[in-house]
């Protein structure tokens, strides 16, 4: 039984059902399969090309990894330094233990501004918190300005990818969503240019009239109190400069020690996420500047389970994530199941290690199935720009889960694993088990194939044959050909 540090993460961090069940449903969505398969395949190839251009890529990765490890080792003092510097430049810092607190803080600020509509820059943290839903319940409309997030919002849908949240949609679906839900839109074709122009019109009106913007932050520089937002469309720049009041929500792990540290991440992030050599719109701001830009700046620091992740010496590497989504794009599991199967706003390999750590892996928690949603192929580790050893952490979380369940009645899997370990601890029992296995030769046909097995073997034989056990095991052959001399 482990003590949970801080309060467990809340919000949109878990699904209703465990991964295998959700995956089974999602695998049948042919539109999603086509879209996600095609998109991840394309961006995978582009990322490799972008990375190959850097002769010092591996050094950059090592530097990024070391910087993040250093940050995590001194997180409290860095957050204090960040707060001091933000406040010194006229900003206001709020500390939110969990999603509920953060939502309340933001609602309070928005109410104090006297507005009932805000614009939003894409922010994973606010998705995690469920900010939009909370604001809506309070009568405040939160308009997403990132095109993909806008599509998801207008379609009353859930995001399926951390970078390209509407990847599961095709242009015909987007056209329908715009036609039905975007005010001021009459006739639309499904030509991407036309759709983008329609969104642009709609969003322009919103940018020019908004009084409050809510953003996330890719990085928060402790040394200077600066925040950084990295984006491809320009909506971030609009939201960060036009409104009177700016609220930035930042997960506490996003702090970096010094301004020069950004040199490493600004090279790693664009090439890993969108396979671009340089990020198109990079915005950095510090506090407020009289007469220019927002006159009120609020930084909300979000914990929501991150302290618990930090407490785990192995698992804390999950906090190194810079949200580039390279791991999602190379993951063969994610490519086929899509993001919705994971249930959390953080899907894919990083989601499989982050989501269960943020929420905890209690008994019956669907998030306990996420660390098992992987073949441990290691493609994610190869792709990660900050070298998070995702396969190692997955096995570590699996071990945590099994250890936490040990004081309960053993499951079928527990019994099978213990029986196997018992047989494997003794060569005599192992040989006996092999003899028992050989007895199953009778159920094989003349082609030496077994096509049906009882549960749980039925899960195998549902789609695969299995060869019949051989008439002679290896050790029997060895004894016959090389003698029984013991070593």
């Amino acid at each position, binding site marked *: 039984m482990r003590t949970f540090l801080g309060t467990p993460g809340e919000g949109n961090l878990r699904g209703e059902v465990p991964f*295998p069940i959700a995956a089974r449903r999602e695998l049948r969505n042919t539109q999603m399969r086509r879209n996600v398969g095609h998109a991840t395949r394309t961006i995978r190839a582009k990322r490799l090309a972008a990375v190959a251009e850097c002769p010092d890529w591996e050094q950059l990765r090592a530097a990024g990894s070391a910087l993040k490890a250093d940050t995590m080792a001194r997180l409290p003092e860095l957050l204090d330094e960040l707060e001091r510097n933000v406040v010194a430049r006229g900003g206001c810092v709020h500390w939110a233990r969990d999603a509920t607190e953060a939502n309340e803080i933001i609602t309070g600020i928005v109410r104090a501004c006297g507005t009932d509509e805000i614009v939003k820059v894409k922010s994973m943290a606010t998705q995690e918190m469920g900010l939009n839903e909370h604001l809506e319940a309070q009568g405040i409309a939160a308009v997403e300005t990132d095109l993909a997030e806008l599509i998801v919002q207008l379609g009353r849908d859930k995001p399926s990818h951390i970078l390209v949240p509407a990847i599961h949609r095709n242009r015909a679906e987007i056209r329908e969503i715009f036609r039905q839900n975007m005010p001021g839109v009459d006739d639309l074709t499904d030509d991407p240019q036309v759709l983008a122009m329609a969104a642009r019109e709609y969003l322009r009106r919103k940018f020019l009239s908004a009084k409050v913007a809510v953003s996330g932050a890719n990085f928060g520089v402790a040394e200077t109190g600066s925040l950084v937002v990295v984006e491809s469309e320009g909506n971030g720049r609009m939201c960060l400069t036009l409104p009177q009041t700016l609220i930035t929500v930042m997960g506490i792990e996003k702090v970096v020690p010094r301004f020069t540290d950004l040199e490493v991440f600004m090279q790693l992030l664009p090439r890993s996420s969108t396979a671009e050599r340089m990020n198109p719109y990079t915005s950095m701001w510090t506090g407020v500047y009289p007469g220019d830009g927002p006159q009120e700046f609020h930084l909300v620091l979000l914990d929501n389970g991150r302290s618990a992740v930090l407490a785990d010496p192995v698992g804390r590497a999950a906090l190194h994530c810079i949200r580039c989504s390279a791991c999602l794009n190379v993951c063969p599991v994610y490519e086929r199941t899509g993001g919705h199967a994971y249930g959390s706003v953080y899907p894919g390999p990083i989601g499989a290690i982050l989501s269960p750590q943020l929420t905890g892996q209690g008994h019956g928690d669907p998030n306990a199935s996420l660390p098992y949603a992987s073949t*441990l192929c290691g493609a994610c580790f190869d792709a990660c720009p900050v070298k998070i050893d995702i396969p190692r952490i997955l096995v570590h979380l699996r071990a945590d889960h099994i250890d936490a369940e040990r004081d309960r009645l053993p499951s079928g899997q527990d019994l099978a694993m213990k029986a196997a370990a018992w047989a494997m601890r003794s060569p005599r029992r192992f040989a006996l088990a092999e003899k028992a296995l050989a007895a199953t030769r009778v159920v094989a046909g003349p082609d030496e194939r077994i096509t049906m097995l009882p549960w749980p073997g039925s899960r195998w034989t549902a789609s695969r044959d299995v060869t019949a056990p051989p008439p002679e095991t290896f050790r029997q052959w060895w004894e016959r050909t090389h003698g029984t001399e013991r070593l």
Partner: protein
Amino acid sequence: MASRSCDPAVTSLAAMASRRSQSRRTSPVCHWYVLTTRAVHTRRRPAPSVVLRIQHGRPLLHSHSRCYLAAGDIVFAPRLVEENPSSPPRELDRIERRIVATTFGAQLRIALMATCLADAMFPQAAIATVQLLERLGHEVVFPTEQTCCGQMHINTGYLAEAAPLIRRHVELFERADADVVVAPSGSCVGSVRHQHGWVARRSGLGHLAQRVDALAARTFELSELLIDVLGVHDVGAYYPHHVVYHPTCHSMRMLCVGDKPLQLLRHVRGLTLLDLPDADTCCGFGGTFAIKNADTSTAMLADKMACVIESGAQICTAGDSSCLMHIGGGLSRIRSGVRTVHLAEILASIQPSRPKEVHAR
């Protein structure tokens, strides 16, 4: 992974030592030469010396007891000292055999880790490994009390159950007193080299950690053993079939075998090696994943099978029986006409296939 080349100075010294001993062929005693060395691999302490023993005209490498040389370590030899031929040099108190990327043609004592899966279900992979290494002139030993490396338990989260298996593994293979350990499985070797250490430390076997690491340092997957340790690319195999090679994830990403299996396959006479599209993509086995997440596993298998069939091969090979069981099981179910054969079986094959071998086993 340490450099693969051996210092030319050593090669020529070994040749000289060999020639010297040739001239004393009638003498029954062995001759000892002390070479100073420096192990390049950063994880090892610098080795003070290597003792080269020439016996019956064949050089055998012995090393100082504190020298953990591994295949590919660069050995410098600024001085060659001929010691008393009848006894080992005095300053060495304990000599253990170690391995070096061989240009010496040394015969090695190789312990086989058959793997639980091959032992029980796919013995031909382990049998072929034995036959191949014996054909290359090495001594193969099989510690009969071995069972499993514990990978399945580790990867499913049952570390406490895996710990005794790790302890057994280390004790058994130390007793075998072999130069190297080989397994016809990238995933099992990956587990031994990359998981046994931290699982041992995490599960109360910290006192074994150093022995675990030492054994892991001389455990190799078959293609690594052949190319890095034995220095052999052409094993003299004959296999006249159309073959496609699937790089298993652990061998590719954990062990970084690179294109070693392909190099070996290219030297097999009669074999037509075809390209596998999307070779780097996981086949979907993943151990218990194949059962717990059977639907996703099947979806990944479907794509892998499509690529295998698209390649036009009649045989799909790999260095892991587990992945082959999964891919082969699928290919069999859809009656694709393609079968799976372990890499070891191909490399051990020296005769034209007899008719009965055409059917998949």
